């Protein structure tokens, strides 16, 4: 009996470990991996990213170059480890040759590193917006059609200094690569215009109690630049308002995004009039944008207006499908033709023309916005100005830009 028991145990282990991998796709379908945060603090953002990607798929009626599109989803929790693990599963087990994602900054850096080990797979970014995903030490097979966090800030620093008249600004941002990039983009212009940033606070993702952060903000600042996402933004803004804080705000791209603007409570009063910048503007009048909003709203659970995650995933998925269409859906050569097509791709998105630079990072229009209340009572990002065709070096010559150094907590600095 003893032996019998052990044998069964061994058999159980054996069958569990060797379930055959059936990764071979039929000829008339093309598999695309979709990696987003379906768990953890950024779940809401990840789900909206998926809506954006599916909008692009729906636009092509679910087919590209006569082949049916099959989307295989992978989930991460915004940590770099989980993103790489999910990407590995999609590539090595499900056998996708094209992968769209991930969503968050550090995830992008990690997936780029992984991309270098998979030269025959083509990686297209989701919305991850850390600068060094493409600027320093890029991967040949990683493409970003959705611009980075510093690009998203184009025009905001100058606007805050000149039009709003803010001379001293404190920053509050999450402590990882994407907010570093956003603060960098804001300060690059703001400091150049003559502004000062006497205090920078970095808070961990998922922080609940901001009282010590709020207490550390100097009294004499003209405004606070806030680059927090999702629940973190809601928590900070609520606590700041309850604590009697009255300094005006300047928003990072995801701070005044639809994922935050749709929250309820007194927060709304604080947010009104907040200037921000990003790849989208809710009140954009362009017909292409309006058509995109209508298409997006057909997705289940959609927000009143697509968040920048829906937009980013849409643009990247759209680029992927256009690229695949050009090569007739053929990735049998290890994706070489597809990557050539993608590098040369230039197309019109709902937010204007997008093309890539030599590091495969997007050059695109950026929107300067201000939060207002729409006719239906929903908060909206009103379009103030379009900054046309922003490149990754923010218009600064590349060698000069590289001298500014890699973004981190202490760079740049202008106290």
């Amino acid at each position, binding site marked *: 009996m003893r032996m019998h028991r052990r044998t069964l*145990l061994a058999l159980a*282990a054996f069958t569990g470990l*060797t379930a055959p991998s059936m990764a071979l796709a039929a000829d008339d379908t093309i598999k695309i991996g979709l990696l987003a945060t379906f768990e953890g603090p950024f779940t809401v953002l990840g789900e909206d990213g998926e809506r954006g990607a599916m909008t692009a798929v729906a636009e092509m009626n679910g087919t590209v170059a006569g082949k049916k599109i099959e989307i295989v989803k992978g989930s991460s929790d915004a940590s770099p480890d989980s993103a790489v693990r999910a990407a590995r599963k999609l590539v090595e087990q499900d056998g996708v040759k094209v992968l769209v994602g991930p969503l968050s900054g550090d995830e992008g*850096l990690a997936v780029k590193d992984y991309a270098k080990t998979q030269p025959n797979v083509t990686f297209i970014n989701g919305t991850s917006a850390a600068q060094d995903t493409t600027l320093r030490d890029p991967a040949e097979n990683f493409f970003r059609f959705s611009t980075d966090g510093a690009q998203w800030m184009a025009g905001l620093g100058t606007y805050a200094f000149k039009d709003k008249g803010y001379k001293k600004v404190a920053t509050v941002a999450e402590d990882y690569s994407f907010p570093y990039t956003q603060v960098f983009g804001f300060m690059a212009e703001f400091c150049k215009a003559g502004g000062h940033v006497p205090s920078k606070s970095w808070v961990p993702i998922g922080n609940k109690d901001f009282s010590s952060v709020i207490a550390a903000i100097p009294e004499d600042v003209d405004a606070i630049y806030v680059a927090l996402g999702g629940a973190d933004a809601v928590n900070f803004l609520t606590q700041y308002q309850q604590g009697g804080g009255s300094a005006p705000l300047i928003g990072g791209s995801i701070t005044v995004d639809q994922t935050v603007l749709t929250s309820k409570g007194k927060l709304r009063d604080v947010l009104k009039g907040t200037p921000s910048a990003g790849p989208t503007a809710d009140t954009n009048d362009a017909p292409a944008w309006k058509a995109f909003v209508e298409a997006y709203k057909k997705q289940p659970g959609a927000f009143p207006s697509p968040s920048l995650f829906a937009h980013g995933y849409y643009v990247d998925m759209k680029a992927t499908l256009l690229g695949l269409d050009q090569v007739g859906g053929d990735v049998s050569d290890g994706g070489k033709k597809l990557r050539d097509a993608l590098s040369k791709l230039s197309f019109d998105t709902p937010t204007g023309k997008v093309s890539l630079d030599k590091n495969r990072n997007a050059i695109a229009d950026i929107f300067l916005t201000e939060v207002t209340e729409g006719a239906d009572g929903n908060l909206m990002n009103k379009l103030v100005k379009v900054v046309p065709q922003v490149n990754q070096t923010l218009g600064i010559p590349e060698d000069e830009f590289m001298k500014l150094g890699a973004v981190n907590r202490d760079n740049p600095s202008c106290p």
Partner: protein
Amino acid sequence: MSLAIATDGTTPRQNWLERLGAGHIILAVVLVLYPLVASDFFLTQIGGYSLIFGMMGLSLMLLAGYGGMVSLAQITVAGIAAYAIAILGNNNSNILGFGWPWWLAVPFAVLAAALASALIGWISVRTEGIYTIMITLAIATATYYFAQQNYAIFNGHSGYAGIRAPAFWGISWRDPKPFYYLCLGLAVLSYAAVLYGSRSTFGMTLQAIRDNPRRMRALGYHVTAHKVFAWLLAGVIAGLAGVLLVWFNGRVSPGTIGVDAAIDVLIIAVIGGLRHPIGPFLGAVVVILMQTFAIDIVGAERFNTLIGLVFLVIVFVSPDGILGLWGRIKPHLAQESLRPGS
């Protein structure tokens, strides 16, 4: 297997094959031949990863099963070894990275993990039952947040990347097959050590302390020292798992040692069963398979619910985990085989 018959009243002498047991031999053959049938993904992402988490579960099983101390800090101990490898060896994050060769970095990393484990044990042996869980959870959470916010040593949220597994004897140990065998080798070593240790004088004493610490103290045993030593041993196993984990991922960040991961290790041990060292490995296979493939079964929105439900069902049907499940089925099977004869 009960072929050995006692003669002359002495202990029956078995040869080493018999002492090993047929089950172990079959399992070993299967695991050694597994790379012949498995794809690279199943070899590392499922096989290697399960063995790594199985080792962490094993270190918890050692403490909980033999010592009666349930710890939620095993992933923290593994994480210390992982961070030590990143700091002592090479990384591409431009922070620290002393560039030590692997044969120097690995012993130091495992030693650091073992000492950290002993320290955690020394703090928590004053408590019992739920309080041990609470204090180890507190330590795990505190370490997570410390790693998240400390830039001098842990490099904050980003952690360390670009950590390479060593290449020696002409083999790159992160290639799928070598890595699998490396994991298998260390897992078997740990498994055998725990199995042997549980029958040693120390193991027996530890189990006696679990059952009745007051009596053992009255008999003159140093209860605290025995418990802390068990923590040290568990730390060695968890530390080895941490080294494998950082080679596997090529990176380590606070997310690696978060509370979710700490609970995963506990789930692995509980699902597998705490009565025998094979339990955590069974649990790891089930948990890793579920976490990897649940998303294909129910889609991206609800897959964590499915994982939770499966674990609930296992624990509901059998409080002793998968091992206990077998214990429940066995008597029925024995009945079946008796029936024709009766």
